[in-house]
C-alpha cells in the first residue's frame, strides 16, 4: 500500500556531481543512500504502526490496550484488525443487540463467508419477541413478533415482577453456514437420538468456545443476561417471522414454553425439546452465568 518513495541509493548518485562518482566516491554515496533507504523504511513502518489495518501484528496489543478492545487467542488477525479499526463504532453500540453482532461477526473473517447472526429476546409476559439480524453483507434487520414466537421457558417468576423485566434475557444465534463451525461442529449426536453414548457436544475447541462466549458477554447490556449462544446449522431455522411447530420427536422449531427449552430433554416425557439442527455453544442453564 505504501508509496515506495525514492530509492536513495540511485538518487544520491544521480544527484552528485561527476567528480564525486569516481572510484570510492560512488561506493560511499551508495552506502549513504542505502542507509537512507533503511531509515525511510523505518519511517514508513512507523507511520503504518498508527493503523491497526497496516501495522505489524506485534503492534496490535498496543492498539488493544489504548482502545479497550480485547483481543482473543483464537481470533484471526483479520478480525483483530477489523475490530480495532472500528473501535469507536463498537463502543458506541456496546450494550445493544446490534453491538453484540458487530462485535462477534468479524471473528469469522478468515472463513469463506461471514455468518448471519441473530439476537432474540422476549418480554417477560411472552407477549412479544424482538429479533435482530445482521446479515453477512452487514445489513441489519429488526423484527418484532407479537404474540411472541420465543417463549423459552415460561419463566413465571419473572412475569410476576412489577414492571416486568423487558428484554432482559437474550439469545445469540450464529448460523454456521460457510464457516468452519458448519463441518467441525458436533451436533446433538445424529440429530434424532439425544445421547448415543458419546460426547454430546465436542466440535469446537474449548478456547474458541470460551473466546466466542466472552465476546458476546462483554458486549451485552449490564442488565441483560445471555441465556444461550446457539450454533444454527440449518439456514432456515430460527426464522423471526415463523410460528413454532413440533417435530415428530417431540422437539419444537422455536421455543413455546412447553416443552421448556431450559432443558434439552423434557423432564416429564423424556423427549427432546430443542431444535435438533442447532447446538448450544453456551447454555446458561447448564454452564452457569
Amino acid at each position, binding site marked *: 500500500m505504501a508509496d515506495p518513495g525514492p530509492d536513495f541509493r540511485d538518487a544520491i548518485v544521480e544527484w552528485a556531481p561527476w567528480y564525486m562518482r569516481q572510484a570510492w566516491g560512488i561506493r560511499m554515496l551508495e552506502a549513504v543512500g542505502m542507509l537512507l533507504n533503511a531509515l525511510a523504511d523505518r519511517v514508513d513502518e512507523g507511520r503504518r504502526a498508527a493503523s491497526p489495518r497496516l501495522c*505489524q501484528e506485534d503492534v496490535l496489543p498496543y492498539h488493544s490496550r489504548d482502545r479497550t478492545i480485547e483481543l482473543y487467542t483464537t481470533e484471526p488477525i483479520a478480525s483483530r484488525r477489523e475490530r480495532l479499526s472500528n473501535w469507536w463504532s463498537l463502543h458506541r453500540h456496546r450494550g445493544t443487540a446490534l453491538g453484540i453482532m458487530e462485535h462477534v461477526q468479524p471473528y469469522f473473517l478468515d472463513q469463506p463467508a461471514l455468518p448471519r447472526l441473530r439476537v432474540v429476546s422476549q418480554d417477560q409476559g411472552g407477549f412479544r419477541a424482538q429479533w435482530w439480524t445482521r446479515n453477512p453483507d452487514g445489513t441489519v434487520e429488526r423484527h418484532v413478533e407479537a404474540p411472541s414466537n420465543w417463549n423459552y421457558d415460561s419463566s413465571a417468576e419473572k412475569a410476576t415482577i412489577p414492571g416486568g423485566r423487558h428484554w432482559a434475557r437474550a439469545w445469540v444465534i450464529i448460523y454456521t453456514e460457510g464457516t468452519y463451525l458448519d463441518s467441525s461442529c458436533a451436533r446433538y449426536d445424529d440429530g434424532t437420538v439425544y445421547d448415543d453414548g458419546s460426547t454430546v457436544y465436542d466440535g469446537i475447541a474449548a478456547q474458541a468456545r470460551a473466546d466466542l462466549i466472552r465476546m458476546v458477554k462483554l458486549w451485552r447490556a449490564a*442488565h441483560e443476561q445471555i441465556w444461550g449462544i446457539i450454533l444454527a446449522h440449518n439456514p432456515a431455522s430460527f426464522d423471526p417471522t415463523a410460528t413454532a411447530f413440533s417435530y415428530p420427536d417431540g422437539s419444537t422449531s422455536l421455543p413455546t414454553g412447553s416443552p421448556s427449552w431450559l432443558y434439552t430433554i423434557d423432564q416429564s416425557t423424556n423427549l427432546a425439546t430443542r431444535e435438533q439442527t442447532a447446538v448450544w455453544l453456551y447454555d446458561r442453564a447448564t454452564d452457569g452465568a
Partner: protein
Amino acid sequence: MALTISDLWTRLTKSELKESLLDIAQASGLPVRDWVVGQPSERWLEVIPRVLDQVLGTVILQAVQGFFLDQATDPGDPGDPTQTEIKAGWLSELGRQWFSTERRGQIFATGTITVTNNNATTQYLAPGELVVQRSTVADDGAYPTYTSTADDTIYTGPGGTLELLPAASADIPVQADVIGTYSNASSAQITVLVTGTYGSLAVTNAAPALGEDREDAEDYRERCRRAPARTASGAPTASYEYAATTALDGTPLQRPDGTGVVSITKVFVDDAITEAGSVTVYCADGDGAALAADIDGAHANITGIPDGVLTEVMGVVPGSVDYATEPAVENTINVVGTMKIKTADAGGLTALELQTIITDALAEYFRTFPIGGLDQLSGAGKLYTGDLVGIAKDARPGFYAPVITTPAGSSTNLALGEVAELDSDPSTDWVVTIT
C-alpha cells in the same frame, strides 16, 4: 528482518547509525574501518550519522510514539525528549483527537486579599501594581508572589484605581505569578507586601489561594482509555463503572452538595448477576464503603437525574431497568501476625515503627483490593491470607519468617458487594522481633 514496535520507538544511537553506515560501506568494498581518523572521507562517516540522529531522535521518534498513549508525552512530562516547558504536545493531541478527552492544564492560584491602609494618606491602588508575597518559603527556597488583577467593580476610583482611605480596608483579587500548586497558600499566609510605592499597607488572605498542576500523564492516559465507555448507547457494564466516578466531560465526578470530588475508587457492578433486568452498583473508597455524598453523586450521574451542583449528568440506566446505587458492605478483617528482622536490617527502627511499616503496607493493599475479592464467581470471591503474608514480608527488605495467625484459614470469603476493610493495629496485632 521486520522491525518490531519496540524497535520503532527506540531511539537509534549515533554509534548504531555509524555502525550501519560502516557495515553497508564495507559490504560495498570500501575499507572504511581502515580510514585514517580525521581525514575528510572519514569525517563524513561522523557527520552523516549525527545529522540522521537529530532527525530520527526528535521528529521521527516522536511521530511514532505519538500514536500510542503509553509512549506519547507532552513537553514537561518525564521522558519527553524535547523540552521542559509545560505545554500541550503529542499526548494531549492524541487524547483530544482520538479520545475526545482534554488534558487538564495548570491553573494559577487565585484568591482575594484584604488590604488595609495604615498610612495617614489616601492610597490609590491600580490593578496589576500591587505585589504581595506568601510568608512561608517554597521548596526551592523562594517565596511565591501574587499580583493584583483587574476587577471593574473594585477599581472604580480616579483613573480606574481603588481609592483606599486611611485605616480603610478593601478586598482585591490576586493571582499567583507562578502557575500551578507551587504558589498555593493557606488562609492568612499571604501577608507580606512587596510593592513599596504604597507605603504602609497590611495584607492578608482569609481564604486559601489554590492553583493546580497539570494533570498527571498516567491519570490522563487512563481517562483516555475509559473515554469510549461514555459513548455506549446500550448501557454496558463499563458505562456504569465510568459514570460512578467520572462526569460526562471526562472530569472527576463532583458531589451534589458541592463539597468536592467524589472519593469513590472502587466500583463493582452487579450486572444482572442477581437477577435479569436489574443492576446494582456498589461503591467504595480507599477506607471502605463509599460516603453518602459520594453515593449521591454516583447515583445522579448514573441515573441521569440532576442533583445539587450536578446539573450535567450522564444517564446510563435504560428505563426498564431495576437500578440501585449502594455503598459496598464492609467486611472488617482483623490481621494479626509476627515477623522477624535482623538488627542490621532494622536500620535503627523500633519494633513499633517496623510493625507500623507492615500495617501501612497492608492498608495500601486493602486500599485497592477489589470489591468482592479475587477469583470471583457471580460477584463473590476471596481474600487470600497467603497474599497478606507476602505483602507483610515485602513491606521492608530484611523481613523474614512472616506468620499471620489471623485470619486463620487460607482465605477469607467476600460476598457480592462486600469490600474488605483492614483492622490491624501495629501496636497490638503485630510483633516484630529484632534478632
